[in-house]
């Protein structure tokens, strides 16, 4: 396991950072987050065409760049730093991971090239009213009695669910339970009987929707009934992606607050000279470094086909979630009154921290899952 980044990886990061500095400044984020679909289509198209961001991890024979998860992690970290409003997490991460893990070849060939080029925006509908991303809890059943597949029910917290052209739906065979009987279905965004309703998000920079399925025609795109484990693996990957996105947000908050503490004067000195503030910042740095280590290690474990991916995914997700939330809360605290205002930018990251904390499983849920993985490893 290498713990450093290569020169090529540093250059890749620098190129992304330049693009995001130009196209995802806080002012631009504020405009995008209140726009119709929650992101700027022109910026997304440019990012896809000029930088190929939508195809980072898609293999070359499907039209992608064929990079590994470490490179995807770098992109996510920079996106998280800039709080970029884009269908990156939904399409480039979740849909691609689910297709690569569970999709049959015919549909990978059909869907991945258009996702890679950015022509199509895809998303994954897993969670339901309970907000649970464990595929074993899915209750939506696929009716296969008629010709074709009919989906009925509702899916919640679908990222970019309103903007997506392609919707990948996880549903189960009638009578099945747990990870058994799960399969992946493809529904067209303009299908009859499909309703899409934007949820009012606490974090306006990541749009999610509630999808209603009233006898919606769909196609099964995984092997019948056997997608449970593959979906779990895809969600591990998504959790690792989210952890990498979170550490970018952590770092920008820490940088901003340290900068502020060096300038803000009270009692005749800059507040950064008070140990009460310095010690908070030192603790924040430790938190951020730990979260980075966990996120980087987990991303590398995917590329290395490490058997501990599940364990590292939960470790990274829980560690980064807690670090991001603490960092965001302390960033507001150290800014004082100004930090509680709408015009100051810190609350944008605070809201992303809060939504990321519970998206794809809460820290408590991941800790329990991690410990189970550790116990299994100890026995093996």
């Amino acid at each position: 396991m290498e713990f450093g980044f290569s020169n090529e990886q540093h250059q890749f990061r620098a190129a992304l950072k330049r693009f995001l500095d130009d196209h995802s400044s806080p002012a631009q984020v504020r405009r995008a987050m209140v726009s119709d679909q929650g992101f700027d289509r022109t910026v997304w198209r440019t990012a896809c065409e000029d930088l190929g961001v939508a195809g980072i991890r898609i293999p070359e024979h499907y039209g992608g760049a064929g990079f590994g998860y470490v490179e995807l992690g770098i992109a996510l970290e920079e996106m998280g730093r800039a709080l970029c409003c884009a269908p990156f997490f939904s399409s480039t991460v979740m849909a691609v991971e689910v297709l690569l893990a569970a999709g049959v070849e015919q549909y990978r060939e059909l869907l991945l090239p258009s996702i890679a080029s950015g022509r199509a925006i895809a998303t994954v509908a897993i969670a339901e009213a309970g907000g649970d991303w464990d595929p074993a809890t899915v209750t939506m059943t696929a009716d296969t009695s008629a010709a074709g597949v009919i989906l009925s029910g509702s899916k919640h917290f679908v990222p970019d669910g309103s903007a997506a052209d392609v919707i990948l739906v996880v549903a189960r065979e009638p009578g099945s339970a747990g990870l058994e009987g799960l399969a992946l279905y493809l529904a067209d965004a303009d299908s009859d009987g499909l309703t899409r309703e934007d949820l009012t998000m606490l974090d306006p920079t990541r749009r999610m929707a509630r999808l209603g399925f009233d006898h919606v025609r769909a196609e099964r795109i995984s092997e019948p009934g056997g997608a449970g484990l593959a979906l779990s693996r895809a969600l591990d990957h998504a959790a690792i992606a989210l952890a990498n996105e979170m550490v970018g947000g952590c770092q920008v908050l820490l940088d901003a607050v340290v900068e502020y503490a060096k300038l803000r004067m009270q009692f005749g000195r800059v507040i950064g000279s008070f140990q009460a503030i310095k010690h908070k910042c030192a603790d924040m740095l430790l938190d951020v470094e730990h979260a980075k280590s966990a996120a980087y290690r987990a991303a590398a474990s995917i590329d290395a086909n490490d058997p501990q991916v599940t364990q590292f995914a939960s470790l990274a997700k829980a560690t980064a979630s807690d670090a991001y939330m603490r960092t965001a809360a302390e960033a507001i605290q150290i800014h004082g009154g100004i930090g509680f205002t709408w015009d100051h930018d810190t609350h944008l990251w605070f809201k992303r921290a809060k939504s990321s904390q519970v998206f794809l499983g809460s820290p408590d849920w991941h800790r329990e899952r991690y410990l189970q993985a550790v116990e299994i490893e100890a026995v093996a």
Partner: protein
Amino acid sequence: MSHDTPDDVRTSVRAWLEANWDPQSDLITWRNKLADSGWGMPHWPPEWFGRGLPVSFNAVIESEFDRINAVGVARIGIRTLAAATLLEHGSEAQKAQFLRAILTGEDTWCQLFSEPGSGSDLAGATTRADFDGERWIVNGQKVWTTSAHHADWGLLLARTDWDAPKHEGLSFFVVDMTQSAVDVQALKQMNGHSSFNQVFFTDATVESGNLLGAVGDGWKVAMTTLAHERRGADALRRWGQLSDHRGLIYDEERAEISTVMEPYKWYAQRTGRVDLVLPRARETGRIDDPVVRQEIAKLLMLNSAAQWTAERAKAAQATGGPQGPEGSLGKLASSLIARAAADVHTRIGGTDAMLCGNDGAADGLIAEILLSVPATSIAGGTDEIQRNIIAERVLGMPKEPRMDGGPFRDVPRNPTRS
């Protein structure tokens, strides 16, 4: 013979060991021979018991010693700090006087820096050394002195100028610990062990030749010692292990190691013993408690994240990055881990956490953990000092305004015991 590559070095050291290693020899005779050969401390200068080789060759050389179970020079304890300090700041006469007996293990050393009135603020030392025209006369008290009760020599930081600013009025001495004016008393810790000493100086004397560096250079010299102390922790772990080979020379080596390591026998417990958490939770059945499970997971995650952070820092250094304040992050993490582990051990032990000794959980080991962990966030620089270092040197935040400028005589300080 050229020593450009590790292979050249391996060939040379192997040839020398084959010609000279004698397991029937006694420890001192062998080590004198080894010191003269330069293979005992190959990265030291050739004129002082070394061969001037890069430190990076040491692993190869050690592996040749290990291959035939050859005993090395004395490399554990405070003597290693003394050697490093002498090599950097000692006069030729001082090196000639002290280095050989350090390597043979004949002399043991201690470090006399901390005082009851100056812990984190080491430069606030008030132990005084006054020159009477012939020798230095030392009065004062030192504390937390490992090995003082059997040391032959001490590295002493003492104040020689009370009108100079705090850091500029200190000087560094080598003091003879066997004189009667030096009174060493054991210091008992809250965990019941006595690993350290208090040392009282009452008109103790230091020969004028035993001033290390110039008068007033004490702080600078002490910084050298402390830098080596920070680096030495790993070596202590590696060389603290006892061999199981038979023979006089091995018996003598084991005795030496046991003496040096004795104060550290509870040190593993300072870490909080994360390794015991899962076995203890299974043993007691507490592994099934969802609250305990959350705390165990938090602890194990923190432990892994800290390990990986240390590896990242190491990787960054390997590619030319600076070494330094990252160590403070690691030290701070160790404190958090130790405290979290003690908390988890308490949750697992439940009511048994009230017990110790034979009545205590795991024959008192858990109680020893609970009572040893508080040392972690104090010894070697408190957590608060580490946070200052991180904030100032990593994050570039300004220092707090100081109240200790001007002549040391006028600096507010703790009352000294008479």
